[in-house]
């Protein structure tokens, strides 16, 4: 009985020096609004707020810091941990050419990013081959060829009716013959609900066995990002993401949603229309941007 009443008094004392439920709820209300406005998925926000509340409850108050600010710090750290690791590099093949397959929704920036990645890897002393496997979109092959010319990287194209999996397969054979150590596959944009086109992507992956399957996502994606990313990941087991058009003012909250549902890391970000405009991903920068 004595130990019980003692611990009651003790905990009462501690209560005055810890974050209260009021402190936490007030701050989290604002965080919820900010994250939703930043396009983080509704359910991901709810889950995230609940996790933060658990972490924040009963935390000892830090001297000279307002309780609200302390909660924000918990939020910030939790977001960094979610969006991490600090940098997830590309993984390369240990024998034979590394195959990198770009995929994603229409207009997300795949073709441009293929060019950017090729230039970056060339700058690292590698010998890339670009593959124009989008035979659907008008002038898609030409688009990749123009980019290849700009950076003096060869582009494998095939205009005699071969389907994309065949084009990619022959590109791989060509790469081995020409001593190319990276093969970058540009694929047509497609909806995750388009079963025949998703099957085509699975077929390309089956015949080329990519070392890296990268989902290219627009930074301005909204709530639906979870649906498309989940689908692509479930069907292809992607290795990572590239977030494009980060040079705009979209808050990029979809990135958090995508990370939450796929668990896959963001490897690079696109920061402009020029072929040099690709950077390594830094979670802390995106988190500050997300919190507005």
């Amino acid at each position, binding site marked *: 009985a004595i130990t019980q009443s003692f611990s009651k008094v003790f905990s009462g004392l501690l209560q005055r020096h810890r974050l209260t439920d009021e402190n936490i709820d007030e701050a989290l209300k604002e965080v919820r*609004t900010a994250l*939703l*406005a*930043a*396009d983080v*998925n*509704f*359910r991901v926000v709810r889950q995230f707020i609940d996790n933060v509340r658990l972490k924040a409850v009963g935390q000892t108050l830090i001297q000279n810091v307002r309780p609200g600010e302390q909660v924000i710090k918990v939020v910030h750290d939790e977001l960094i941990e979610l969006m991490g690791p600090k940098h997830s590099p590309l993984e390369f093949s240990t024998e034979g050419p590394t195959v990198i397959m770009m995929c994603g*929704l*229409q*207009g*997300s*920036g795949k073709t*441009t990013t293929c060019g950017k990645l090729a230039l970056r890897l060339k700058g690292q002393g590698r010998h890339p081959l670009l593959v124009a496997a989008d035979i*659907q*979109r*008008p*002038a*898609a092959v*030409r*688009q990749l*060829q*123009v*980019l290849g010319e*700009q950076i003096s990287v060869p582009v494998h194209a095939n205009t005699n009716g071969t389907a994309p999996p065949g084009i990619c397969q022959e590109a791989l054979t060509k790469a081995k013959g020409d001593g190319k150590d990276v093969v970058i596959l540009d694929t047509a944009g497609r*909806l*995750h*609900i388009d079963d025949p086109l998703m099957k085509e992507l699975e077929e390309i992956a089956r015949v080329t066995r990519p070392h890296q399957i990268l989902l290219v996502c*627009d930074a*301005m*994606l*909204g*709530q*639906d*990002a979870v*649906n*498309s990313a989940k689908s692509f990941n479930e069907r292809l087991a992607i290795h990572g993401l590239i977030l494009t*058009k980060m*040079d*705009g*003012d*979209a*808050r990029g*909250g*979809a990135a958090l949603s995508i990370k939450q549902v796929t668990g896959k890391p963001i490897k690079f970000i696109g920061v402009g*229309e020029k072929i040099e405009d690709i950077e390594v991903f830094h979670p802390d920068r995106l988190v500050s941007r997300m919190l507005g």
Partner: protein
Amino acid sequence: FRLRRPIDPQVLEELEEILYSADVGGEEVARVMERLQAAHREKRMEDTDQLLGRLKEELKVGLQGMDSGLRWSAAPPTVLLVVGVNGSGKTTTIAKLGKRFQDEGKKVVFAACDTFRAAAMEQLQIWADRLGIDLVHHQQGADPASVAFDAVQAALSRKTDVLIIDTAGRLHTKDHLMRELDKVVRVVKKKLPDAPHETLLVLDATTGQNALTQAKTFREMIGLTGVVMAKLDGTAKGGIVFAIYNQLQVPVKFVGLGEKMEDLEAFDPAAFVEGMFG
């Protein structure tokens, strides 16, 4: 969303979630949910069917009075300027518009004012060839305003009914690119004071709240007469149109429902609202 059950707070949260996941956005969701709660208080609804029906009504009311028709010039050509951020669907939408007007018996001309992006002109040329539509273009890297000027000139001399101008994708945050667009508008106006008769912002339905910022900025810089919501054939709902219409008074004129030249429909508010819950 399960129908035929009694209404409780959980139900309201579910409806709110549907609106959020449709990219309706915080402000608009709050506004609509408040009206729904008020309606529920004043006329106690029995079950979720009634509540859902009432919500759809509120959403449709939110879009009423929207003028989705096109403004035709008194004397041809009618000039349509198509703008938007990178990859939203502008060039493909222009092909669809071209087909639509051609099927109505109109003579159409395209202007290739994206002189910057790799193979942009080739892309539009392929669409033009498929449709048998003339394409006015200069060399890669030419000044978009001078292409626009020549295109208006050509449209006038070729007795064209509709001139559709394709522009390069540009993020609204890039001042120099927005100024480039403004120059295209001014040059067109010089030749035809009432043009462009329509300035259409093509939005990607998968875009979140940034679509509202895009609409605000493009509207501020060059004026907008309408929005085309592209890629609505995916799972994204394009709910941002409520905010765009209520806050900026910009109507939706068309929706893009695929990658083929037939995949364009006039905006239908009732169908759009139903699609949000489909």
